[in-house]
């Protein structure tokens, strides 16, 4: 098996945590996007000492490719267990690419209420944006060929890793 050419996800998470620490408080509304973003948000929620319960989003009902691709199987439930109104929200996702997922996530959040602000944290920014969206906190930026995908995986010991998938 060839060596994994991607950086270590645990190290990226550590630097992402350091970047977020000065700006995040116990009342920050942390919201992970299923599935990789939720794994990251669970870890950040703990290490940053956030007391507001963790929110999760599955943006399947808000995607802009529904009419072309239909509804994904295994849709998870969205759950925002705190009051969005007036809350400083940070959306967490594993890989930031076209920005379409984040657009969908912001639309869904507004159906729960009016947040004071929304910021974005991503473990990896792979470029290739198709919308005017950028991350506020990034673990690492890297370039990946258009046909390839970066996937976050989690093993039985909750250890995170990045995998390159050829399209």
């Amino acid at each position, binding site marked *: 098996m060839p060596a994994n050419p991607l950086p270590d996800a645990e190290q990226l998470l550590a630097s992402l945590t350091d970047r977020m620490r000065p700006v995040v408080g116990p009342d920050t509304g942390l919201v992970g996007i299923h599935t990789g973003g939720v794994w990251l948000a669970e870890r950040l929620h703990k290490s940053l000492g956030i007391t507001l319960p963790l929110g999760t989003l599955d943006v399947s009902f808000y995607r802009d490719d529904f009419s072309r691709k239909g509804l994904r199987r295994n*849709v998870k439930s969205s759950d925002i267990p705190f009051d969005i109104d007036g809350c400083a929200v940070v959306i967490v996702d594993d890989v930031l690419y076209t920005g379409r997922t984040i657009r969908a996530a912001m639309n869904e959040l507004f159906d729960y209420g009016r947040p004071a602000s929304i910021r974005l944290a991503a473990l990896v920014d792979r470029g290739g944006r198709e919308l005017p969206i950028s991350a506020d906190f990034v673990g690492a930026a890297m370039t990946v060929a258009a046909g390839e995908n970066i996937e976050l995986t989690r093993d039985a010991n909750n250890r995170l890793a990045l995998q390159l998938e050829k399209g």
Partner: protein
Amino acid sequence: MWLNPANPQLNKNGELHHLLSLEGLPAEVLRQILDTATSFVGITQREVKKVPLLRGKAVFNLFFEPSTRTRTTFEIAAKRLSADVINLAINVSSQSKGETVLDTVANLAAMQADMFIVRHAASGAPYLIARHVGPDIHVINAGDGRHAHPTQGLLDMYTIRHYKGDFTKLRVAIVGDVLHSRVARSQIHALTTLGCPEIRVIGPRTLLPVAVERLGVQVHYDMREGLKDVDVVMMLRLQNERMNGALLPSAQEFYKYYGLTEDKLDLAKPDAIVLHPGPMNRGVEIDSSVADGRQSVILPQVTFGIAIRMAVMSILAGN
């Protein structure tokens, strides 16, 4: 033909294109609908009870037979998916002027319909419509004759799974007028597909279909015997308006032998749940103390019905 000839609800990729009956649908498709519905349940607790999935789509409620609850829950479900809903009570419009069903449907299709929700007194009417619409139109059976009521069957499965979990450990009783019930047929097919090992049907001989045991169910004429140790009691409505006498001496006698009362329910497991598709005939098939009692999940059924119909519509629209 772009539909699967063996099962005309599925497209060539085995995906659901119409929902006409639960008979012959793979367990995987049923589970996909139930799982998707779970995700829709939470939406109704938000400030904005809507998602944009069917924005710009036109959903036609085509009710050739009167219905309040089913039509309303389909309407709410479509609206929560941001579709535009048009309600047509056809028994009082064109049909009375002599237009055929297919002409009615062709005219509505020309008005750019995307989905038809069909309720009809004749078994098979939704199939006829599904065969004659264009490939971009989806048809959902909202109850046809004595044949099928698939979304009711699905919401019952959702309710059972919500309270009881795994189907493979359950003993389920279906009680009452099975003969006239499209709901019972849909329930039996869904329970069988999902692996329920013991399905009992309970009713008087005159209200059970001939050879109903061929569907893989146990038959009980004695309700007390049939309810023994069941986990789930699914009551059926006594279809008064379909009975032209003869099958039953009286509603009172039916209540005595087949009405669900507290003392009969005590024979089921202590944590058994009671379902009813509505509308209920209190004091005929079910006693008020049971209908309103702690084991009744009749109102949650209605709530889950909206999520199930949202799931079915969004899965069909995406396939």
